[in-house]
């Protein structure tokens, strides 16, 4: 991380702590130079969970039960990556029905998490306006100003949650996917419930897309400065380059859209992904190993997945992808467009869900393969809503865990989040800010830079709770000149 140093005696630091409307606890430090302009920024994650350590010694088969407890928003992502790591240890191909059911649950997860990010967490900023007083700038404010939209958004999230419940028996933390497959199938009643809800989900997503296009027209400045910089992008793609969310292989592209590495086996992620540790944050910073740190900065998640894939594989989302791709020269590099990418992924998820509704194989009852320990190391990779998630387990011959490594999406976006915050702060915080008065709407823009990534700090540091915000203005000598705390 390119933290500013050395600083002159008069330079300062702004700290935003806690950061709100994201999942977890974090703070932002803005380093000011002598003239009071923002020189650099750091996003610190201030919570520590320790899952990688305390899971050591447990049977690997318990991990799909333990690791979803990392997070209440995307437990399914951990569930699926964990079960896949178990598949790899058993060296089995899971039954086709189980694979489709896992995919169906992941699509439900993508819909619910993206709906939460768009409607509940981010839309209050760009729909209500940056200057809206903070007490109203939330989902309740959205309900007050646009009841139908807010309701539809909440219902869309519910749709995704219902899919998870229909399959796993509960909306949060279903103990359903297991090494070798899944524990229960899809009932005809469950399928019917999903099928009947689809038209409403489509209508909401189409309305949100239309609304987003209007938003883009009025938010060109945000598109330009909210995390608009070159970087690599990484995501899973199918063999033919189609969008993937649960299988496939890794692909890296650069900001010109060129593929720089393709069809990499996720089992060997460690050959291309390095992890850097900063003393100022519990969040690790993965980077693309061949380019080194920090030059190997890459982004994951909806924006990255849409950049690395050639097509979505379903018509409505493909039509949107064409429009999306026109927003960049090569790759789409503005992190503000994560929001758009999220909506396109919701659309794709709905279309894939619809396909599964008429797929007879998904109703099968052979759901679980059985095997002993056939590999002493197994990696499970799956696309979580926020980006590629890796669970890497090393076991002994009896299946007890010796080493656990979890690489989560938010960590992989860490370097990009720092750059985004710095870019926004540089634009809005001009000289004189060091005097200690930073208007709240301005801080909110800085926070929004983080929200674009929909980070999940609970996952990334394996932290609990909601994310309040703390911003500090820091002088070159390290003293905190100004501080704003909220939450």
């Amino acid at each position, binding site marked *: 991380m390119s933290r500013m140093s050395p600083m002159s005696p008069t330079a300062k630091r702004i700290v935003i702590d806690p950061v709100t409307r994201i999942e977890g606890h974090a703070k932002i430090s803005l380093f000011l130079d002598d003239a009071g302009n923002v020189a650099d920024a750091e996003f610190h994650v201030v919570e520590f969970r320790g899952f990688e350590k305390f899971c050591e*010694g*447990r*049977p690997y*088969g*318990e991990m*799909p*039960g*333990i690791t979803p*407890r990392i997070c209440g928003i995307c437990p399914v992502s951990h569930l699926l990556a964990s079960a896949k790591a178990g598949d790899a240890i058993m060296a089995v191909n899971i039954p086709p029905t189980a694979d489709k059911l896992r995919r169906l649950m992941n699509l439900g997860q993508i819909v619910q998490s993206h709906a939460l990010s768009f409607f509940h967490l981010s839309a209050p900023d760009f729909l209500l306006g940056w200057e809206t007083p903070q007490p109203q700038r939330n989902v309740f404010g959205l309900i007050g100003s646009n009841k139908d939209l807010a309701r539809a958004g909440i219902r869309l999230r519910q749709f995704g949650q219902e899919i998870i419940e229909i399959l796993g028996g509960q909306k949060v*933390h279903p*103990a359903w996917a*297991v*090494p*070798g497959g899944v*524990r229960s199938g899809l009932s005809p009643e469950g399928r019917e419930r999903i099928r009947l809800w689809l038209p409403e989900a489509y209508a909401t997503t189409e309305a949100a897309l239309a609304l987003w296009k209007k938003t883009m027209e009025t938010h060109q400045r945000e598109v330009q400065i909210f995390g608009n910089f070159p970087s690599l992008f990484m995501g899973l793609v199918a063999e033919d380059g189609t969008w993937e969310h649960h299988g496939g292989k890794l692909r890296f592209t650069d900001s010109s859209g060129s593929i720089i590495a393709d069809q990499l086996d996720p089992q060997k992620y460690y050959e291309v992904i390095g992890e850097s540790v900063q003393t100022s944050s519990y969040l690790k910073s993965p980077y693309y190993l061949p380019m080194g740190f920090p030059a190997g900065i890459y982004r994951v998640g909806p924006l990255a997945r849409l950049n690395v894939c050639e097509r979505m594989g379903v018509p409505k989302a493909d039509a949107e992808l064409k429009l999306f791709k026109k927003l960049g020269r090569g790759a789409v590099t503005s992190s503000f467009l994560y929001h758009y990418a999220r909506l396109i992924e919701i659309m794709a998820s709905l279309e894939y869900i619809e396909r599964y509704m008429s797929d007879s194989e998904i109703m099968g009852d052979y759901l679980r393969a*059985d095997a002993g320990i056939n590999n002493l190391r197994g990696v499970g990779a799956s696309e979580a809503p926020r980006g590629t998630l890796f669970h890497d387990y090393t076991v002994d011959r*009896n*299946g*007890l865990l010796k080493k656990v490594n979890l690489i989560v999406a938010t960590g992989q976006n860490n370097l990009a989040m720092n750059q985004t915050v710095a870019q926004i702060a540089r634009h809005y915080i001009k000289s004189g800010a060091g005097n200690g008065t930073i208007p709240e709407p301005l801080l909110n823009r800085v926070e929004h830079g983080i929200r674009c990534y929909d980070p999940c700090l609970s996952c990334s540091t394996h932290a609990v709770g909601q994310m309040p915000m703390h911003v500090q203005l820091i002088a070159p000598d390290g003293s905190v000149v100004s501080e704003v705390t909220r939450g």
Partner: protein
Amino acid sequence: MAAKTLTIDGKPITAEEGATVLQAADEAGIKIPTLCHLDGVYDVGACRLCLVEVTGVAKLLPACTTRVAEGMEVKTDSERLRKYRRITLELLFAERNHVCAVCVANGHCELQTLAYSQGMDHVRYEYLFPKWGVDTTHRLFGMDHNRCVLCTRCVRVCWHVEGAGTKNVAGRGTRSHIITDLAMPWGESDSCTQCGKCVQACPTGALFHKGSTTGEMERDRGKLEFIVTAREKKQWVTAD
């Protein structure tokens, strides 16, 4: 055999001489909480959850090992008993590492069910967080000492129903633990017949079928009773 008359919770009861208070209460439809008791094997009074008050006796007595006597007045429920049962449960939870949410027995655990039924909503004692391992060397079964309450049901079924004598208890105090043969990995045991009766007998998630995930460990205790009834009474009858 002579019959004894007594009262349990004020209800007049007739029980066979030699019967335990627990048996007499059970026959009279009075439920006493138990944990180490298992139908089909003898009782040892290890868990102290079935404590009852007997008029004229100052200390509390375990119903599972106390024999009925003529004129005995037994109370199975009182503020004092509820207090001691909660203490016992809290100590059991504090002694090892019980994490229900991710346990293989979640939803089917006798310890968990007792905690719910006795209104245990928190533990007042400091958790010991001992470092216990998991033995997954056996081809079929696993033993997680973190979840063991030392009820010795597994030991008793192994010795007295299966007759293999594989399981035993070693150590003293909080270091007491279940061992296999001469404290060797279960997978290396010569005496284990792989019958799985210990797994059926376990009240918590300590003994489990390998590959079980959260909440999957459901037991069929009826199988043990079936075997014991068949052997002792020459009656091959299932519970239903």
